């Protein structure tokens, strides 16, 4: 491995400073970063370990005046087991408890999971200098490409899918991402946190160099609020999702007052299916409504040569998520 500078700051200021330089990467649980370094796909010069930073915001799960706050260094297992998250923000607990394997959940953090880099097999292979690594071509989108796991929505010119379970759940839960950087602190509504490749091919979110996620806040659930996250992979053992959905509903009696439907592992970002949300609003959750919403969710999907199966599969995911909330 090429020599990489290792830095373990004790304050946010030091961390921000250290992360501004080119080739600096933040290390929390290391579940994504360490393998990426081993794969030799990042131009890493410096690793900044965040775990010694004293800042309390970075850790734990606690109430705020209008909701819940979760520190970026909180492990996925803490989130999955937290009673408040389980009962009031169920989608997030379900998303966290289906990440990777027990070992990964014990070490992996919310911040790391939210900012996880894609698993595209071309991106992850050092021999393939793809668009996302500054290259001239997307191999997955090529007519000779193998793209069975790639995007059917929002793709182009790069066709990755966003791998993060918690990102999908947080989008359904309308979270706010709190970041700190050289310009100070800012709050980013989750709908504005992720970016499509056509806006920025090199990143999956709007974080600037030196910026760090400190914590995430979730709004107080209104009356009649319920949420869920479902996903499916190819196998039961540790596997990436090939499709999934997070759905949050505000029910007014038997009718849907508000809905957020977010598709998982089918687009370069957690994909908000606004047409599905419209199809649900004001409706009872009958099988017909659920079917209409599922079909609406996939409107505009543009499969690549090998991933058309994701359309019926994702419709099924939306149906299953909604059926759970009936």
């Amino acid at each position: 491995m090429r020599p990489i500078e290792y830095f373990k700051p004790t304050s946010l200021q030091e961390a921000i400073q250290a992360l501004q330089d080119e080739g600096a990467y933040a290390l929390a649980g290391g579940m994504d970063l360490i393998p990426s370094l081993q794969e030799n796909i990042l131009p890493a010069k410096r690793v900044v370990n965040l775990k010694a930073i004293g800042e309390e915001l970075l850790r734990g799960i606690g109430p705020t005046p209008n909701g819940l706050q979760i520190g970026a260094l909180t492990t996925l297992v803490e989130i999955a087991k937290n009673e408040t998250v389980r009962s009031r923000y169920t989608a997030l607990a379900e998303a966290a408890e289906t990440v990777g394997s027990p070992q990964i959940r014990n070490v992996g953090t919310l911040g790391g999971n939210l900012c996880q880099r894609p698993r595209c097999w071309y991106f992850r292979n050092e021999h393939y200098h793809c668009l996302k690594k500054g290259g001239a071509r997307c191999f997955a989108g090529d007519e000779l490409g193998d793209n069975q796991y790639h995007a059917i929505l929002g793709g182009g010119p790069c066709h990755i899918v966003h791998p993060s379970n918690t990102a999908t759940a947080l989008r359904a839960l309308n979270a706010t991402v709190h970041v700190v950087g050289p310009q100070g602190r800012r709050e980013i509504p989750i709908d504005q946190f992720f970016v499509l490749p056509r806006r920025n091919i090199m990143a999956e979110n709007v974080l600037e160099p030196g910026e760090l996620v400190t914590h995430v806040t979730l709004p107080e659930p209104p009356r009649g609020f319920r949420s869920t996250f479902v996903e499916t992979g190819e196998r039961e053992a540790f596997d990436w999702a090939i499709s999934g959905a997070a759905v949050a509903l505000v029910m007014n009696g038997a009718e849907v007052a508000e809905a957020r439907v977010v598709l998982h592992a089918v687009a370069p970002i957690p994909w908000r299916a606004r047409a599905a949300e419209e199809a649900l609003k004001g409706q009872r959750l009958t099988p017909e409504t659920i079917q209409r919403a599922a079909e609406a969710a996939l409107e505009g999907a543009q499969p690549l040569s090998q991933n058309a199966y994701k359309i019926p599969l994702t419709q099924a995911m939306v149906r299953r998520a909604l059926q759970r909330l009936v």
Partner: protein
Amino acid sequence: MAVIPWKPPAQMDYITKDNPRLDGPAKVTGRAKYAYDAIASKCLVGRMITCPYPNAKAVRIDTSEAEKLPGVKAILVEEGKVCRLAGEFVGAVAAVSADIADDAVRLIRIEWERYPFVTREEDAVQPNAPQVHAGNERPNVRVNDPDGEGDVEAAFQQADAIYEGTLSTQVQTHTCLEPHGTTAVWDENLEHLTVWASTQAVFGVRNDLAEFFGLEPHQVEVITEYMGGGFGSKLGGGYIERMAARLAREARQPVKLLLTREQEQTNSGNRPSARARVRAGATKDGKLIAFEAETSGTGGFAGGSGFPLPYIYSVPNWRRQHTDVYINAGNARAMRAPGHPQGSFIMEAVMDELAYRLGMDPIEFRIQNDPNETRRRQFRELAKRLDWDRLWKPGPDEGFPLKRGMGVGAAVWGGGGHGSNAEVEIHPDGSVVVRCGTQDIGTGTRTVVGVVAAEQTGLSPEAITVQIGHSTYPQSGSSGGSTTCAGVAPAVKVATDNALWELFLKVAPVLEASPEELEAADGTVRVKGDPSRALSWKEACAVLGQESVVGRGRNDRSLSSSGTAGVCGVDLEVDVETGRIHLRRIVSIQECGLVVNKLTTESQMIGGVIQGISYALFEDRIMDRMLGHQINPNLEFYKLAGPADMPEIVPIVWMEPESLARGVIGMGEPPVIPVAAAIGNAVRNAIGVRVNSLPITPRKVLAALGTEV
């Protein structure tokens, strides 16, 4: 002394019984040392240098930068080597740490002459396809001579049901959990080489290295105390062992060289793919009468994609032609029942499709066409164990979204014993040492050795000191073809009997009997039929005074046999919305003659089922067409079945008296054979349409169901 037959099974204390692995505690506590663990300190780390292109020649190599890197101790590169796959080895480096070795590999500048390449079979067969073996006469396609018998066309005229279809299987890599690896050390005069090898062939590695370095066999010592899987990919000495020894010689220091996972997946062998365009016919009384197939497959750049077809079932009229397709990818090696799972997946699909067309029960149809009496009875037992008569329906299942289905398949295998020798030494203190140069590739051979010696001496297996995996021990064959148990067990038995005879000669006068009258049983040496005239084992051995006795034995094949039968049945559910397959239960029935250790036999069956599940549902080597690399050379996207994917697995060892009377037969391979076929048939039964290719992924299930838009 003439070879004494096995005791009647009813009189056996350990053989045919459940004996826990003798090395279980060592393995689970980490005390067991593998090839890479051999030398704890001052051992250099070797790393392979690989070709980054699928078809290229290393024309110029500059190692000057790498040589300057502190900690680099040896660099060996093969200028002029032509590589036929991305990831082929062109040399290796040794350095004081793995990181430095990796850096050194990156610093080596190689100028490649690149040739056009082709990494997929469908591309390789095109008329203007790039030539895999660029620059020589070898074409990408080799058509084998047609084979067959009878009058196929006339038979099809008689058929009441005909099935036509195309079926295919993927390339499967061995995915040894312990990658290929070796630790090598020379003596200071370079006259003696010691190698700890992860190998299925201790003596094969010894002979290869001796020949390669111009040494006599005794100058090379190969040690394989433990190993973490080979499945056929570690059947002899080769590039890795030689390279480790060359690096160690160059550096004058021990070197350990282990493939990375990527190298293990791309360039350490695989099960070739198979494709068959088949047509088969049967009569309404349930006789398979006609079969024809055009088949092909790829063994990568090296060919060797043959597989048996027609398989298992008798068909009087058949015709087949096979074509080997070459691509720029890793080459085939023997893999757990080479060829058979491919033939099984294709043949069993044909059998089910014909049964459905005839309106017959698939098990009944098989029984009518299976020439093997044992297997016919096994099929009946399988039906009972699966509750087939009650649960099986022609399908598709009405359920939604889960549809239940059942399917079966069958296996045939040889499993005759290889040439093997053993030596048993009984010491005056009562200790018993068995030495046999065999390796235990994970199947439980060490325990088999102990069990056989225990059975013959009347001691417990734990009381036997088993020494295996060393080329200074009596010669034993390589572990391929499920030949080890049937080779080693007879050799150990004969050696133990011969050592006992030597002991009896000394003890007989003390017991005032002739040696022929003595037996070793229940921890004693005693006069047969007169237990009052007995010495404890320790007392008997004490009679030896200062001198131990030694017995030698070899497998003369009178205590073993060959040819085994097995069947497998699957009960599963298919989620027709997600395309996911949920296995409920898999029953595996396997004959293996005299069962030396029932417990480890069952674990081989379970292991075979697990590997079969993985082959059926998940594993797939995917070769990229643009740059020519395997794009899933890892365990992330080359997916293996995990614990959570396991159904209830029911291993049933066939213990009928006539089977036990046949002598020992190996069975590490056959349980894997029918699993994918049975799963494929169960999916077909559940959903009413066939997924024609392996692995059966959600994508293919949804496509078969026609729900894909």
